[in-house]
Structures are given as structure tokens and as C-alpha cells.
């Protein structure tokens, strides 16, 4: 397939007044039936459609999106991409994702602006530094890059950071993953959408699933705001809406709670920080976009919520944490804040599996780390749908692992979703 976007096409279209660009995806009406229906036109759903078509030759696929494409968490996250996990199941999966990110712009012929600017976790106590050493060693053991940094090295990397002994929580060191970074999240959704569309996948926006068609236990399609659609396989990739959609299928309870996570961006500044930094004495992370805005966030609000907006206590907490690290930002104005609904699982790890009903496939439990997983999630979910069995990478991420005692709890918090 010839690249649709190239220096040549840019020049040729510029000379013709930019009137001949094709829309990045069609707006088809739904057909009566498909081989596979994917519910949810976010990053994971679109990536799944793309890899179903590209890797498995399954192109008779529809992606059903309730709103407009990419209106959910794929456009609401803080864009960090990393694979600095402790437990092998997570490390292998997220490292697979990282390797896919490294070639994603080329793969999609769409500039996702993946920038490997590094991700630094700050340690504020010697015990925390020891813990980071342990995690760094676990990462390196599985072939992932990790390095410990001293306060002096950190100060050279991030001059604005308060590294003094008089800081509220003095920095004693940090764990750096150099290959981590950020990507432009909208481009990821649009790139996958165009790639799937050009291979024949129907992306159907403004199409809300209102129920499931059943033949006995078996799921045979969906009812939607745009009519009934039948399919041999129905895949669910709806993140924060997992509970609602599964209840439509008669699955009353799930090992998931939906919580709201807020994110913030400041006015544009001159180059201030060229890495992703995380605070170790609370929950705070920050990077700077190419436009100059500081993008940052912290903890979820901490109570069940389907509202895509949060409350002020977390705003206050996040700002306090930011100023504990960067006192110099006290006079910078916040430009926007927003919220997204996160599917918090009981062990902080995702679920990519066949079932739980015959004819159904499930992708959920991303907590607030779903963006970095997008390529591997789509790749593994497509594999699972096409072959009716998981790939090695997602085999541990079953739905029944909780009942079988095989939880993957990277943080060691127990079955308490608001703490993951």
C-alpha cells in the first residue's frame, strides 16, 4: 500500500490548494451483519479493528462508537507512555506495547509524535529508593531499560525541580526509563481509524449500543440507536462504561469500579521540562507538550463516578503536589481541566479475554494506564478475537483470575480499586 501521507503528497496537495485530501475515515451506515463488531471507538477499539484487518485478514468489521471518534479517554489522558512495571506479566505486556510505539508512526503512516523523552519516578526516602532499585532490577531482568539517578543527576536533568534539603519532601534519587515518553493521543486514534478504514473496517459514529441480541446464552449481535446489527463475534472495549455495557448483556457484577480521573494543562511556557516526572510522596505526574503547556494530573477522585468531571479537593491536592516539586510554578495559570471515567480493576491490571458469554470478547480494567497500552491491547485483543484464545502476552489477564487467586497486583493494594 502506497503511503497516503508523504512529503510528495503534501507538496502535490499544496500545489492543488489542498482540495483533494480524502477524509481520514468514511461515514458508512451500518450493515445488517458483520464478522466482528467492536463496541467502543476509542484507542483500544480502533487498534483492535486495525490489527484484526492487518494481522488476521478479518476486514468485515464494524467499530460502534456512541459519540464521536476518540471522544473518550483516548483524548483525555496525559499521554505518558512507559513500561516500568514490577510484575513479569505487566512488564512483558507493556514492553511489547513500548516496542510497538517505537515504530507506530511508521506503521500507521501517521505522525503520532511519539517522543522518547524519558519518565523519571522520584524517590523521597531511602526505603523508596531501595524499592525503585528492586523495580529497576526487575525491569532490566526482562530486558527493559531502567537506571537509578542521583539527586545531582536529576538536578541537571530538571533544573526547575526543588532538590534542596528544605523541600517538603527532599529528593533522594529516582528511577529513570529513558525509552518512556509521550505521544499525541488524538493522532493515535485518528491513525488507527484511518488504517482500519482503508482496510475495509466500518467505523460507525453516533451509534449507541442499547442491548445485545442473544441466541440462548450466545451473543449474536447488538441493538443500537441505528438499528440491529448481527455479528459472529462481539467485542467490548468500552473502558469506563464497562459496567453499563455488561449489564446490558445481563452480566450484573464485574471486578470493576468506574472512577473519575482529572487532568490539567497550564498556559504555554518556554521549554521548562523535557521529560515526564512523577512525584513519589503522593500521586502527581507532569510533562510539557510541544505547544508549551504543562500537562499534569494526580489521583482519581476516589469515589464511584460516571461523570466526566471531578471535584475541587483533587484539584487542590494536585496543585499542592506540583508546588511541592516546582515552587517556581506558583504564578503559572491553569488553562483547562477535564475528567475521564476509568475502569478501575480489583488488582490494577487489565482484562483481555474471551467471554464471559459465548460469542463475546472483553477488553477492560485499564485503570488510568490505558493509553500507553493502546497498541499492545489492540494487537492482543485482535489475536484473542481471531483465534478464540489469548496470546501469551495477554494470557494472564483473564476475567476469572480474581476468583482463582491469580491476581496481578503491581502495587500490592489488594481488592481496593480506588487505591490502584
Amino acid at each position: 500500500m502506497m503511503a497516503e501521507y508523504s512529503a510528495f503528497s503534501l507538496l502535490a496537495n499544496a500545489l492543488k490548494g489542498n482540495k483533494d485530501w480524502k477524509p481520514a475515515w468514511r461515514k458508512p451506515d451500518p450493515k445488517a451483519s458483520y464478522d466482528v463488531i467492536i463496541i467502543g471507538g476509542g484507542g483500544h477499539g480502533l487498534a483492535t479493528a486495525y490489527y484484526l484487518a492487518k494481522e488476521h485478514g478479518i476486514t468485515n468489521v464494524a467499530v460502534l462508537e456512541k459519540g464521536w471518534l476518540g471522544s473518550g479517554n483516548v483524548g483525555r489522558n496525559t499521554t505518558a507512555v512507559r513500561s516500568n512495571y514490577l510484575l513479569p506479566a505487566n512488564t512483558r505486556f507493556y514492553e511489547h506495547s513500548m516496542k510497538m510505539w517505537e515504530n507506530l508512526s511508521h506503521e500507521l503512516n501517521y505522525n503520532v509524535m511519539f517522543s522518547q523523552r524519558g519518565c523519571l519516578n522520584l524517590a523521597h526516602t531511602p526505603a523508596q529508593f531501595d524499592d525503585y532499585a528492586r523495580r529497576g532490577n526487575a525491569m532490566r531482568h526482562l530486558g527493559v531499560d531502567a537506571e537509578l539517578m542521583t539527586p545531582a543527576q536529576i538536578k541537571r536533568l530538571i533544573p526547575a525541580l526543588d532538590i534542596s534539603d528544605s523541600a517538603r519532601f527532599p529528593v533522594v534519587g529516582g528511577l529513570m526509563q529513558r525509552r518512556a515518553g509521550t505521544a499525541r493521543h488524538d493522532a493515535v486514534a485518528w491513525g488507527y481509524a484511518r488504517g482500519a478504514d482503508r482496510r475495509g473496517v466500518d467505523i460507525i459514529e453516533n451509534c449507541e449500543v442499547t442491548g445485545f441480541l442473544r441466541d440462548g446464552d450466545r451473543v449474536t449481535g447488538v441493538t443500537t440507536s441505528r438499528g440491529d446489527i448481527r455479528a459472529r463475534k462481539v467485542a467490548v472495549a468500552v473502558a469506563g462504561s464497562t459496567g453499563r455495557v455488561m449489564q446490558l448483556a445481563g452480566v450484573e457484577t464485574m471486578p470493576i469500579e468506574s472512577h473519575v480521573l482529572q487532568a490539567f494543562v497550564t498556559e504555554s511556557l518556554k521549554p521548562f521540562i523535557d521529560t515526564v516526572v512523577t512525584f513519589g510522596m503522593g500521586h502527581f505526574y507532569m510533562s510539557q507538550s510541544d505547544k508549551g503547556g504543562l500537562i499534569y494530573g494526580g489521583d482519581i477522585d476516589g469515589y464511584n463516578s460516571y461523570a466526566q468531571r471531578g471535584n475541587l479537593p483533587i484539584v487542590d491536592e494536585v496543585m499542592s503536589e506540583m508546588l511541592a516539586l516546582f515552587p517556581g510554578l506558583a504564578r503559572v495559570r491553569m488553562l483547562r481541566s477535564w475528567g475521564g471515567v476509568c475502569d478501575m480493576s480489583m488488582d490494577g491490571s487489565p482484562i483481555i479475554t474471551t467471554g464471559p458469554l459465548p460469542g463475546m470478547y472483553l477488553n477492560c480494567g485499564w485503570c488510568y494506564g490505558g493509553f500507553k497500552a493502546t497498541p499492545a491491547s489492540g494487537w492482543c485483543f485482535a489475536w484473542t478475537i481471531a483465534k478464540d484464545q489469548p496470546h501469551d502476552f495477554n494470557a494472564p489477564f483473564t476475567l476469572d483470575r480474581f476468583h482463582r487467586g491469580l491476581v496481578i497486583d503491581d502495587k500490592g493494594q489488594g481488592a481496593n480499586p480506588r487505591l490502584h
Partner: protein
Amino acid sequence: MLITCPYCGPRDVVEFTYQGDGNRERPDPASQNFEAWNAYVYDRLNPAGDHNEIWQHSGGCRAHLRVVRNTLTHEILSVAFIRGAHTSTARRKAEDKS
């Protein structure tokens, strides 16, 4: 979000600690019913709408409260002490709404 504590009156949400889903039923501690314990620990209703939940007024009277709150709007529909006469009202409200 303001939560009206039955003892202290309307207070900011920062004074309260969320204790999670109030629909779960803890099995008898002596129970060896594996499925019941699993359901208690891991399974959640997670409704989009009225949610029966437990909060503690940890920054106030420290009472445990049964709160019915809408997860789509964050509107608080009822608050009652978790023990005592108020409890049944809250439960009924949650059941009526569901």
C-alpha cells in the same frame, strides 16, 4: 460535593473517607463459602445512576454513613447512620431507585 452528616450537618467532601460499595454483603466470618467470599471481595454492581455506598465522616464525628449518591451527577440523595433506624430508609430508597 457536600455531604449532610446526620450528626454534624452539611460538610465538604474532604472531611469524609469513601469506604466503597455499600451493596456488598460480608459473609459470616466463620463461613467457608468460597463463592460468597469471592463475590464480597471482588464483584461490584458499579451502577451508572443511584449508588448505595458507605462513607465515614473521618474528619468530623467519625460516624459511618450510608449514602445514596448518583454516579452520573454526583447528587446526594440520602445520608443516614449506618446503624439505627435511618438505615432502613436509605436502603429502601436505593432499592426503589434501582
